[in-house]
């Protein structure tokens, strides 16, 4: 029972005063499996993040994009700090650090942020009314994404015609080709916009089906 006690000590004091005895009584009735141990560990994290359980939901996950952006910003500052002639890094390491780290952190931050927000929405106790309200900003955000995508395409094509020498250079992200960077940005934005449009259509369709079902 030592491991059970140790795991329950990770819970907030108020939680333990209320539930510890009955949880221990329950755990005495069956052996603690590894998955149950991990489950208790996550439960402790949840309880620490929600000292007044039932009032907040997993909305703390909405801070993940901000934290991910902070990590990304820290990475770019780190890369800038080491980007000087006397850093004694071999060219291979330079490329690995600049391109690998930059894109690795960027992609990881994007995936983690998206996952955290999706999980927060799915598992949160946000009222249906508030979620319905979210459709309006979602429509605005999707339209904005489409407009920014169109503007980026027009800007890139304009640059190619107006200053082809700039477009053919290597002034893209972390010293990559300008054309390649522009194309990559356009492709990522196009995929993101497409996903947003699909999500919006699915959301509107589900809302309409639920309204019909509950009418």
């Amino acid at each position, binding site marked *: 029972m030592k491991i059970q006690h140790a795991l329950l000590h990770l819970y907030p004091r108020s*939680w333990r005063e*209320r*539930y510890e*005895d*009955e*949880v*221990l*009584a*329950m*755990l005495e*009735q*069956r052996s603690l499996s590894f*998955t*149950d141990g*991990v*489950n*208790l*560990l*996550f*439960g*402790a994290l*949840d*309880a620490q993040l929600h000292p*007044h*359980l*039932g*009032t907040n939901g997993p909305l703390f996950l909405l801070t993940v994009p901000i934290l991910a952006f902070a990590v990304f910003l820290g990475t770019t500052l780190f890369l800038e700090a080491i980007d000087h002639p006397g850093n004694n890094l071999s060219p291979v390491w330079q490329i690995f650090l600049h391109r690998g780290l930059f894109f690795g952190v960027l992609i990881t931050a994007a995936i983690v942020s998206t996952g955290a927000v999706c999980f927060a929405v799915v598992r949160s*106790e946000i009222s249906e009314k508030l979620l319905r309200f979210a459709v309006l900003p979602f429509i605005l955000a999707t339209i904005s994404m489409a407009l920014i995508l169109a503007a980026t395409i027009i800007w890139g094509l304009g640059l190619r015609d107006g200053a082809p020498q700039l477009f053919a250079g290597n002034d893209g992200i972390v010293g990559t080709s300008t054309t390649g960077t522009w194309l990559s940005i356009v492709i990522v934005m196009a995929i993101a916009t497409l996903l947003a449009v699909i999500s919006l259509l699915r959301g509107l369709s589900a809302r309409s*089906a*639920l309204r*019909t*079902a*509950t009418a």
Partner: protein
Amino acid sequence: MDTFNLGRFSDPPILILASLAGSPKHGYAIMEDIEAFAGIHLGPGTLYGAIARLETQGLIEPLPAEERRRPYRLTASGVAFLQKQLTGLETFASMGLQRLASI
């Protein structure tokens, strides 16, 4: 008993409320009951996280402890909430089945 896995619709609070709809139960009995009727094992962290939330929201209430085990039962709000959720699911399921039948 035949069971089926509720998959992503296995929301722990709903499972707990459905379990308590039968009779008041303590944590271990709730866990066993859910395993029996839904084929889902709720870990102790998930179970007590959901119990704490349901209690905070006034959907369940604790009864006097029996030794160290404390049973819970549905409140009037809990009954109304569960009724509403299950009715919604029933309506939704009927609509889906009707549409499937027309294929």
